[in-house]
């Protein structure tokens, strides 16, 4: 007695169309089709579907691959994107890190507050980058006064005159334009007889009427405020009284119309 043969199933028929029928089912299915010509003709139509569709799409399959789909092209584009992401992430980390380091999280500042925080972080980063420079602390020196004023005024799109801090013992060294995520900012650098340096950082922003905010991180002190849609940050390594005096003088200069 032989094993009973499983009955024909629809899956057998589909597999027959696709030539995926297991070897041991072949004879059974062929016998069934021989006995059922209507089913056989239906399956023949299914086979014709496969070949007909494949033929209709053959031209697409044989078409040369567009250069834009080359994997090396895609890899290169991806590398560029990643580099951009990393640079942005790094700058955000810098800003976030400085903001957090300065312990402002609990101050309950408004949106203006967060803008001022960003300006301060940028100012501190610029301060740390450029005040340690021996040969190139500034890009345009104070003795090219007219050029400095014109350059910074042009890039910040408003008249900028460096405030005179000489009554407090600070000489203008010069300045530079700096990139930010929004619009160019400017850094003015001053020094005293001991070689101590401070910076006045100016960043155009959509805010004004913000009072002095003082903060300290390590030996770096900052005072930030905003007026005339400009955030101003005084940064230096000096006692609180000294930096407040500088900030007050800068603010008075702005109020007197010499911007700042």
């Amino acid at each position, binding site marked *: 007695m032989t094993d009973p043969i499983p009955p024909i199933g629809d899956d057998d028929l589909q597999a027959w169309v696709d030539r995926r029928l297991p070897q041991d089912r072949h004879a059974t299915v062929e016998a069934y089709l021989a006995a059922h010509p209507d089913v056989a003709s239906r399956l023949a139509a299914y086979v014709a579907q496969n070949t007909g569709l494949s033929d209709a799409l*053959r031209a697409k399959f044989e078409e040369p691959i567009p250069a834009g789909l080359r994997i090396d092209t895609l890899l290169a584009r991806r590398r560029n994107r990643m580099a951009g992401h990393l640079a942005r992430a790094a700058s955000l980390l810098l800003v976030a890190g400085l903001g957090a380091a300065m312990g402002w999280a609990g101050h309950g500042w408004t949106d203006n507050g967060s803008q001022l925080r960003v300006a301060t972080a940028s100012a501190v980063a610029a301060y740390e980058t450029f005040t340690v420079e021996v040969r190139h602390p500034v890009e345009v020196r104070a003795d090219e006064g007219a050029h400095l004023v014109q350059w910074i005024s042009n890039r910040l799109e408003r008249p900028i005159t460096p405030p005179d801090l000489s009554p407090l013992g600070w000489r203008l060294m010069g300045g530079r334009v700096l990139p930010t995520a929004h619009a160019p900012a400017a850094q003015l650098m001053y020094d005293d007889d001991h070689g101590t340096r401070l910076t006045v950082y100016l960043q155009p922003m959509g805010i004004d009427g913000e009072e002095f905010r003082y903060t300290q991180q390590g030996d770096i002190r900052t005072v930030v405020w905003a007026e005339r849609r400009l955030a101003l940050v005084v940064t230096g390594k000096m006692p609180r009284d000294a930096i407040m005096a500088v900030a007050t003088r800068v603010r008075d200069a702005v109020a007197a119309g010499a911007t700042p």
Partner: protein
Amino acid sequence: MSRIATLLEPQIPALRRYAFALTRDPTAADDLVQDTLERAISRWVLRAGDAELRAWLFAILHNMFIDGQRAQRRRPLHDTLDDEANQAGIPAAQETALIGREMLEQFGALSQEHQAVLLLVGVEGLPYASVARVLGVPLGTVMSRLSRAREQFRRLLDGERPAVRPDLRRVK
């Protein structure tokens, strides 16, 4: 050429064919293939293994197509069988071209689920188990869907274009 390119590039013609058959729009199809390849590259370390590469890529493409369709439904419909789309799918020989055009037109009338299963099984020649993975359905569903799709397609070709495909006419 990088190793990833050596493995991926041989798959591109079939991916383009599948994408074109689904969209019947050469530009949309290549956009879909590009998105698929970019995603494959970004998830390269997550792939199941080189043996399953083909099914993995088709699954990515298929899911992106479905996602795109969902987004598209909010936009006004337009005729996907424009002239350009037809040109690109037509073989050179005139008669074959005509049959191919008729075939694709009828094919376009099928539901998307039916189109996908017919393409993956009949044109791409994927094993049924791989098709199940690509479509994210059980094997039994693939088989019953395949059966219904074939019958549906046969009726479309039979009923409306008997002169073009006499060999598909129902024999009683």
